[in-house]
Each structure stands twice: as C-alpha cells, then as structure tokens.
C-alpha cells in the first residue's frame, strides 16, 4: 500500500510539473509574441511619424528642420528609389513606406541623433514641386572648388555639417559616419586618388559629387584607394539658371545617380500634369484651356486693341507664345520620362515661358 502511495505521489508531482510547464510555456509564448508585436508596432509608428514630419517639411517652402532623433540613434534609416517609387524605412525591420509623388534626396542610409530636413521649391519655370533634402549631423560635406555655387551653398546650409576646404588633403574624418565631397568645378576628384585620411574609411561611407561643364553632374564612390564613377554618362542638371537651384542642391544630397534620377522623374511627371493645369488638357494638340484658356477668353472678350500685346503673348505671336511653349513643355516632360537624354530640351522651353511671363508682367495677367 505504501508503494502504491509512493507511485501516486510521484505521479502527482509529475502531473503538476507538466501542467506547470505547459502553463509557463503558454505565458512565455504570449510574452515573446507581444514583444515581437510591440517592436514591429514601434518601428511602424516611427516610420509613420517620420513620414508625417517629411510631409510637413516637404510642403513648406525653403524651411530647414532640425529633428532631434536621439530615440532613433540605434536604428539605421534607409532611403531608396526605383522605377519612380521612393521607399524609406528602418533597416532590417519590416516597417517601410513608399511614395511615388514627393522627391526625397537623402543618403542611402542615415544613422544619427539629429536629422536635418530642408525643402526647396523646384521651378521650371513655374513652381513644380518641393524637393526634400534629408541629411544628418553625422554626414559631413566637404566643399571644394570655386564659383558662385560654393559661396551660395555655404551660406544656404547654415547649421549643416559642412566645411569649405581649399585642398582635398585637408579632409579630417573625425567622428563623422559618412563623408561626401562636393567638387564644385570638377578639378579635385576625377583622376585623383582617395586622400590618405579617408583611405581607412569604409568604401560605402565615402562618396563624391562632381559638377562640371555646363551644369553636368557625376557621382563617385570610394573603392579602395580610388574614386569610382557610378554613372555611365554625365547627368545634366535640369534647371534654369539662378539662385537656389533646387536640382543642383538635390544632386548634392542624393545618395547616388540612380536615386537622383529616379526622384527627378517624379518632378517631371508633376511638370507634365502642371502644364495641363496652366494650358489645358489638350494643350499638346494646341487647344488651350486651364488658366491660359481663362486668360485668352478674358482678353478676347475685352475686344480692345489695347490688349493686343497680351493676346499676342498668349496665342498670336508667331515666334513665341504661351500656347506653343506650354504644348512643347508638356510633350517634352512626357518624353523626358521615357528617355532621359531628351530632358535637356525642357530647359530651353521653360526659359521661353519664363521670358513670355516677364513680358506679360507689364500690362497683362501673368501665367504664374
């Protein structure tokens, strides 16, 4: 009987141990699942908040925002753009967001306690969209060379981690995580080796952007002790001359040639739509509508020769008028999305529209 009681007691404890283990396992699995869920939720929230910050910063012209991201300093944000669709998120996490509208120019990865967001309006010749430049206090920009752009860049980027140097050998890596060299006249990077101070730095963290000729840009990446050009042909910066050339600044902050061109394509898509807003849906068939249609109807209804110049600039002047120029702008913006080499034609067309708009300013309603 005693033996039976002993077996019963042992069985009783085994039963308790198994039941306890099952209960513990159940709660443990809940805890693990919850931890996973809350981590995913946190990264999704971070991406969502970042998206809202970027949306806010993107719409307000010429604003610089310095965002305290100390809570994010353990995470690496990544930015990419492919086939006209931009994507950003946290590296090695599922949370990410895609955007096919807003052009965002940023390094491929960003890890810092302070993120800098700067918005610049892109005009061709009217305002097309705001370009959003993103960088951080850990990304150092060394400016080399001469020309108006150098002074303008240094003045415009107050608060950024940037420095003007006379010689590429002056580069000092210090505590920076990523270095970009801006060669404003194309005399410092091409054909030269990587400066000694940068040779120990990881290849992916050293890059250069080189401006040359009549507003062309090339992107370089460190490969051992040499600079490697990452784009096949020089990329033409599509912009009108003047201060705060958004397309040129965008090249400075873009991760590489591919993301630069991909984001520029977003702007050209918007330009195509905007030429319809100004000229009407069938402006490519030389049928005016939109704002230009309203201007034309207004001056036609006045029927006075006093406004002949206004109508001339809108439709009548044979050599250059808004109807023909907007039609060309729409067609060229559409062509540029298919074939990048044709994008350069946008510059002269936009320049023509700008000139007509200036002519209209004296006595007529302006287009923009």
């Amino acid at each position, binding site marked *: 009987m005693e033996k039976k009681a002993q077996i019963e007691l042992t069985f009783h404890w085994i039963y308790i141990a198994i039941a306890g283990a099952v209960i513990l396992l159940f709660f443990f699995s809940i805890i693990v699942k919850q931890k996973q869920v809350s981590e995913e939720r946190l990264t999704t929230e971070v991406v969502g908040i970042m998206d809202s910050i970027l949306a806010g910063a993107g719409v307000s012209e010429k604003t610089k925002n310095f965002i305290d991201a100390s809570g994010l300093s353990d995470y690496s944000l990544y930015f990419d753009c492919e086939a006209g669709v931009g994507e950003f998120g946290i590296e090695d996490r599922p949370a990410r967001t895609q955007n096919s509208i807003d052009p965002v120019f940023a390094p491929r990865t960003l890890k810092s306690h302070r993120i800098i967001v700067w918005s610049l309006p892109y005009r061709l010749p009217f305002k097309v969209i705001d370009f959003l430049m993103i960088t951080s206090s850990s990304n150092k920009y060394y400016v080399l060379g001469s020309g108006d752009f150098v002074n303008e860049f240094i003045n415009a980027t107050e608060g950024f981690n940037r420095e003007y140097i006379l010689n590429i050998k002056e580069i000092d890596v210090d505590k920076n995580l990523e270095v970009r060299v801006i060669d404003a006249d194309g005399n410092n990077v091409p054909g030269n080796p990587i400066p000694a101070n940068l040779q120990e730095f990881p290849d992916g963290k050293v890059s250069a952007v080189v401006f040359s000729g009549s507003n062309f840009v090339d992107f370089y990446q460190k490969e051992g002790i040499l600079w490697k050009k990452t784009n096949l042909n020089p990329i033409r910066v599509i912009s009108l001359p003047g201060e705060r050339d958004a397309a040129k600044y965008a090249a400075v902050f873009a991760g590489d040639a591919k993301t630069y061109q991909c984001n520029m394509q977003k702007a050209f898509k918007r330009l195509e739509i905007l030429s319809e807003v100004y000229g009407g849906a069938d402006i490519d068939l030389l049928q005016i509508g*939109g704002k230009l249609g309203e201007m034309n109807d207004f001056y036609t209804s006045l029927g006075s020769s006093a406004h002949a110049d206004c109508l001339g600039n809108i439709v009548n002047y044979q050599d250059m008028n808004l109807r023909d120029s907007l039609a060309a702008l729409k067609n060229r913006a559409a062509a540029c999305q298919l074939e990048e080499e044709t994008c350069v034609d946008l510059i002269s067309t936009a320049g023509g529209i700008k000139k007509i708009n200036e002519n209209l300013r004296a006595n007529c309603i302006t287009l923009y």
Partner: protein
Amino acid sequence: MSASRDRSAQIRMTETIAVLFIFFVLVLFGIIFYYKYQQVSLVEKQEELLGARAIETTLKTLFLPELICSRGEAETEDNCFDMLKLRSINETFKRYLENYYFDIFSYSRIYVQEIYPGDSTYLLYDKVKPDAVREEPTFFVVTLRDEIAGKGGELHKFGYVAVVVYS
C-alpha cells in the same frame, strides 16, 4: 476503509476539477479583457490616424502648386488659391485620379467654399470610400485671388477649403 478512501479520492478529484475550472475561467476573463482592450485601442488608433491624415491632406492641399497663388519667381503666397487655376482643376484631378492624385489625397472630398463676396462652391476632388464608417472634416480659411473678376487687376475673395477624409 475502502469506501472512505474512495470518497476522499472523489473529493480530491472534484477539488482538482474545481481548481482547473476556476483557473480556466480566470484565463478566459483575461483573454476577454485583453480582446476588449485591443478593440478599444484599435478604434482609438484608427481615429488618431484619421485625424492625422485629415491634417496632412489639408496641409498638402494648401500648398499644392496646382492651386497656390504665385508671383513670378517670388515665393508663393500662403493660404491663397489662384481662381484661374482653381476653376478648372477638377478636370485635371479627375483625369489623373487613379494614377497620381489618389496617392496624395486618398479617400477624401475637397471643396472650396467662397464666403465673400459670392457664395460659389468649387468641388476639387471627390473620391468617397464605398464602405466608409467614419469621416473627419477639416476647414481652413483661404483667400481666392481672381485677376479676371478684377478686370485685369487683382480681386481677393474670401472662402474656406474643406477637406473631408474617410476611413
């Protein structure tokens, strides 16, 4: 003695069943409480997201190059819509709704209501969610610049832009 042992075993068995029953009732309570809590927080989160989307959509609308007043190369005028662009913008938004503007405005309804001197309404964008359960309207005062009504000079009207978002 055997009968009393049987009884004691029966009592112990009933006791164990009662303990297990109470345990599972408590677990069930926990699950129900957690489920209800999750339901409430999900609704709260949805409302929060809808509110954020309403503000974001309004902000984007106010700064749209398709609508905003410009003056050549100068900075654009905040909270001002160009009536010459606004009057025909609905057609453009419709034409590019699926492959462009839906990505900006999503499911929403945007219109401009003139308050002074007239009372015209201009529907800009309209994409109502078929099974919408909630809507969040946001209003913002804007000036409406009409160069034609001012006979070539500028006439500023007043109105508001209403952005209604759905979820």
